[in-house]
């Protein structure tokens, strides 16, 4: 059991690195989908485990919802948004991709050192898993600030949410069922709204370049 979880947590971290290396918006969505599939497997494994151990089906329901929302619907929605907006390739990064990947490595090392010195988290066998998932959150944030376009921001936000979800699974065996459901609903609605807005921004000024939002400073 713990071996599977270790492997999945590492794979999730790798998926974040892969995402960071992507240039095309289509590739972002594919990487995100891969990551969501990994999360679905993770919840599935934990769900079966808790079913066998305590007879709870909660986690399996969460798993089904994750598949429905994160693996199928959100990538579909993003693909649709992506078709509507004018650009396909991110041309102008603030940094080039090797530097971004190095930045991700730095984030993982940083998380390792900061969390391993926090007593309380550092006890028991969850240590590395939590470090991997917190790194995932930070890489999501880093992804958001490294991409300029609206789709990049939405994907970054989703990676952060994925990371938080995984942290909850690893650190606490999942939040209370109703909270998990509420969080997934919120994410779904958030992505729908963001998608619509990205489309409207595109209508208004042709490119969804967040960098051009200059009128609202100060």
């Amino acid at each position, binding site marked *: 059991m713990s071996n599977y979880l270790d492997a999945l947590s590492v794979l999730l971290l790798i998926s974040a690195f892969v995402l960071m290396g992507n240039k095309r918006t289509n590739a972002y969505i594919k990487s995100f989908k891969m990551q969501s599939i990994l999360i679905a497997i993770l919840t599935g494994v934990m769900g079966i485990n808790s079913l066998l151990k305590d007879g709870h089906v909660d986690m399996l329901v969460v798993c089904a919802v994750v598949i429905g929302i994160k693996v199928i619907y959100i990538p579909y929605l993003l693909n649709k948004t992506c078709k509507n907006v004018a650009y396909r390739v991110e041309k102008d990064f603030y940094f080039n991709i090797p530097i971004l990947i190095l930045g991700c490595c730095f984030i993982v090392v940083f998380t390792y050192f900061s969390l391993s010195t926090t007593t309380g988290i550092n006890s028991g066998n969850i240590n590395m898993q939590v470090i991997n998932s917190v790194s995932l959150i930070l890489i999501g944030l880093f992804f958001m600030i490294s991409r300029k376009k609206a789709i990049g921001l939405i994907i970054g936000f989703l990676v952060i*949410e994925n990371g938080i979800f995984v942290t909850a699974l690893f650190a606490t065996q999942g939040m209370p069922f109703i909270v998990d459901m509420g969080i997934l609903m*919120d994410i779904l609605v*958030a992505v729908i*709204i963001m998608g619509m807005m990205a489309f409207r921004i595109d209508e208004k000024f042709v490119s969804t370049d967040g960098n051009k939002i200059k009128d609202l400073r100060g």
Partner: protein
Amino acid sequence: MGFVLLAVPVIAVVLFFLLKKMQYQHAVSVTASIILVILGAFLTREVMLYGTVEYTALGGIFYIDALSIIVLDIVVIIGFLTSVYSIGYLEEELREGKLDQGRLRIYYILMYAFIFTMLLALTVKNIGIMWVAIEATTLSSAFLVGFYNGKDAIDAAWKYIIICSVGIGIALLGIIFLQFSSIGVVESSQFLDWTALFNNAADLKGPTLRLSFIFILVGFGTKVGLAPMHTWLPDAHSQAPSPISTLMSGVLLNGAMYGIIRIVAIINHSFGNSIFVGRIMVTVGVLSVATAAVFVFTQKDYKRMLAYSSIEHMGIIAIAIGFFTPLSIFGGLLHMINHSFTKSMLFLSTGNILQKYNTKEISKIRGMFKLLPVTATVFLLGLFAIGGAPPFSVFTSELLVISSIFQENNFLVGGLLILLIAIIFTGIVVTMFKMFYGNEIPRETSPGEGNIPGVVTIVGLLVIITAMGLYIPGELKGLIENAVKIIIGG
């Protein structure tokens, strides 16, 4: 009764979907808000009599105590005033062709969805569901910020939803660490249950709790508009329609601050002192007030100016909570109430000004006393009130907060706070006073108030804030004292 409170906005939303006629929609909106006020009054009485309102249904999810009822009453009262104001405001917008019937319906649907999420956040015991509700407030208000569909409005809405969603996501990470610190202390059926966490606070794991507080402060602090996470706030407040700015400034910020206060209560109870939380809260609070002090001088837009003033006042509340003495918390909660009413009055007045002059720029507005005699008077007095001039209510609560700081012998923070508040007062006066005088009245405008229900609302608010400045009713005082006891514990 409590569940009825949550059902009313939902029913209102359904009715907005069903009823096509505009008059009906106004009627539904006002009726729903009146019912909410009545239910709020009823629940307030229950809380005064029994301390808490709890039901066993749905796993005991519903929970109101003195702290939540204070914020809840602010929500329902300002919700009521906003719906009354909205009638006149929306009619005027329709006349000018800025809206059509369909958009009006969307406005009401989103407004009541927003009120529902606010009420949900305030009436649950589970911190996780509170988080879900606070995130939902962002989602329901995002389209309201971008309601006018202009370039700036959509920019502001985009900035709002991205910054707040990510910020609130960080708060969720904090909540996960909070749950983590409670594993083995509370039963799994009571995970994230506020009362269980508070009662067992002494056994929570300290280091994880510290980590959790920092994440939660950054997360909910984004929503409160504490510097340096405040960047979305001036844009969103200035671009949203004025009644929505009112709801955001008067209601939404308090809701997020309520989340922070709940967490602070657990953590201080756990550590047995407020040194850790206090340092962080006071720093962030002073930084917010200082940010506002710098930016009020450079504002060209009167709604942005008021938004920066909201940042200032949230900073003051954060400082008050940071000091964590009974007097400072009392002052902080009172300040929350006073700020909400005063700022609502100001934002509602800006709606009248905006509709008359069709501009948000301070430099283009002259001769307000001639064109809008009542609104101008209320707005002028409101500016004094929000700056902290006696005899208005904000003065009373600021005085309480500052004297509580001096009581703790912290002359540095107290002195700094007085200085910054004075600077902000000057800044508001210097930049805004030009609006009131002058003879150059723009063409195509005629003197007189347009929005009669709106004028009645703002005058009513002026009466409330003046009365509250002179006299705090005994019941309210008792309620706030109970809330202080809940926060401090024991």
